[in-house]
């Protein structure tokens, strides 16, 4: 009903491998895209800047992690370190006088190179042991970052980002920052949507399902693992750089700590491994809901006339964040993307209740 299937017949491979097989999906995406374009005129600047912008950039970053964890099946607990590499190298490049367009690409490429180091761990072990190795590598990167003033920017360990300028235009307004974030997120989303239609995407999935079976089929799993890490690191690097350039304006090592790595992984897993729409939901949930719950607690306690300790309030978002991860995993281990998929499948044939795939 809502996702009308009548009249949709795929008679050849080209039509069967389209991004949106059901017109309703395409229309919905177009609608959301238009809302995204119009957001600066609809949404008050405060919300635009403090909710929409980080949401979009984190979604781009989470999609990058989804590429390596969801598609290629390699656990990665050092993603924030890779983002840091991109952020620091592009800001250093920009401060050096390189135009921002190239600085962002430099950041992405540096991240790719460093991020591929993680792949060498993936060539040797997988699963839990890969997670532990990448975690240890994150600690090493953190250490290097905080202990080298040349990178982290002197004794205060903070690095001012120069004014963002793209295509000769200095970007200083909230609207401008929003469109940069929106553009990057759309770009990454289009890349990811197309990924599963390409040989690369299918090779990654083959490696995820069983690497030696993939090898027997002629898929070089070493090559594709390194490629997956390099690509996802590129996305991580540019996202990290944009995050500093449009949101933090100041790069500091703790913005890319272990906790952040865990947070991005949580976004991906809560959203659903290998699910693009899920990454959007996952980031929204992990990034925004703890703050909202905290606001609710404050309002409630004010309404009831209770006095809640400041320290308690400061830690409630953390408790909520942890609880959200646990609850979502218990309700639907495949994540929010799967929940959305269930609803979509149901609505496809509504008011009937059978859907045969």
């Amino acid at each position: 009903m809502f996702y009308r299937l009548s009249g949709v017949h795929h008679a050849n491979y080209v039509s069967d491998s389209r991004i949106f097989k059901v017109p309703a999906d395409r229309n919905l995406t177009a609608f959301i895209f238009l809302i995204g374009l119009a957001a600066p005129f609809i949404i008050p600047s405060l919300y635009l800047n403090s909710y929409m912008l980080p949401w979009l950039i984190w979604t781009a970053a989470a999609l990058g992690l989804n590429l390596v964890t969801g598609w290629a099946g390699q656990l990665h607990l050092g993603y924030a370190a890779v983002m840091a590499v991109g952020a620091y190298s592009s800001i250093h490049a920009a401060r050096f006088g390189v135009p921002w367009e190239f600085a962002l690409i430099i950041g992405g490429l540096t991240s790719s190179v460093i991020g591929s180091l993680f792949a060498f761990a993936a060539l040797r072990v997988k699963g839990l042991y890969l997670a532990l190795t990448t975690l240890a590598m994150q600690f090493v990167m953190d250490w290097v970052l905080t202990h080298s003033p040349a990178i982290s920017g002197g004794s205060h360990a903070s690095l001012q980002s120069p004014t963002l300028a793209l295509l000769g235009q200095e970007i200083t307004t909230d609207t401008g920052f929003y469109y940069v974030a929106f553009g990057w997120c759309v770009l990454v989303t289009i890349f990811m949507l197309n990924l599963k239609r390409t040989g690369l995407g299918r090779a990654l999935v083959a490696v995820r399902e069983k690497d030696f079976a993939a090898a027997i089929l002629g898929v070089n799993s070493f090559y594709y693992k390194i490629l997956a890490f390099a690509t996802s690191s590129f996305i991580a690097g540019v996202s990290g750089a944009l995050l500093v350039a449009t949101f933090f304006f100041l790069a500091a090592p703790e913005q890319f700590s272990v906790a952040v790595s865990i947070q991005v992984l949580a976004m991906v897993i809560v959203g659903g491994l290998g699910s693009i729409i899920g990454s959007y939901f996952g980031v929204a949930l992990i990034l925004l809901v703890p703050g909202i719950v905290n606001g609710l607690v404050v309002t409630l306690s004010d309404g009831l006339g209770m006095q809640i300790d400041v320290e308690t309030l400061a830690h409630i978002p953390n408790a909520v964040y942890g609880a959200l991860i646990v609850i979502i995993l218990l309700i639907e281990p495949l994540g929010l993307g799967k929940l959305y998929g269930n609803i979509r499948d149901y609505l496809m044939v509504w008011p009937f209740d059978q859907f045969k795939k």
Partner: protein
Amino acid sequence: MDWVFLSELAINGVLTGLLYSLFAIGLVLIYKASSVPNLAQGGLTMVGAYVVLALARDVGLPLWLAIPLAAVVMFGLGFGIERVALRRLAGRPVVMILMLTLGLDIFLRGTTLAIWGGTSRSMELGVSYDPLFLGDIFISRIHLVGAGVALALFVAFMLFFRTRTGIKLRAIADDYMASWSVGISVERGVGLSWALASVVAVAAGVIWGEIQGVDQALSLLLLKGLTVAVLGGLDSILGAVIAGIILGVVENVGADFLDPLVGGGSRELIVAAVLILTVMIRPHGLFGRHDIERV
């Protein structure tokens, strides 16, 4: 080369290392029974220490009573966590289980701090801070006590694994399908391993809380505990003890050599390097089972 200084570093390294083992035993217990890497052990340790303090300060019990009571509370908490959360994800891919334990860790930390606040508290075990001199070698008393506790727990678990319940746990660790078919309750066994790990967390929380104060930093022991557990082989308690000693000595002596070179703070680097090298060279650790799949 100053041999007295070096041996002082080594001996204190051994003692600190045994304290890491104290933490790692909890990880090993759970991994042994259910192959679940419990990344929430840091959070559990923190909760353990805070529960002891809550019983001692807020309720006003003496410490010798508060610690066993806290162990009982944590026993229940561990059992509950397994029952509510872990059991429902049994058999899922390791990435989801990892995430679940990470989520639990964040939740436990957040809740503890929301209830008791983030300011560092002291445990006040009553162990004297006067250094103990062994010839020219300086030894901290609390480290000695902690190392004793770690060894005592090690012996206790060695004995426990010879009892009827312990044999059941070993059977589950060996092959849970086979245990199931001979009538061992695998669920209860795994639950018990979580409960025991939570009790170990109380011990680790009390000792480490005395050393560095009871605050959020307790959960940062996780990296060191993981390194010890992996180096020892994730399913060997003996491995955890020996690996703890190795890591402690390497860290203490290595930091002394490296710190002047890199300007301090090289301990974390050494620990991370040991973890990476272990996984790269010998993923099953010193005493672990060789069933890890190589790529």
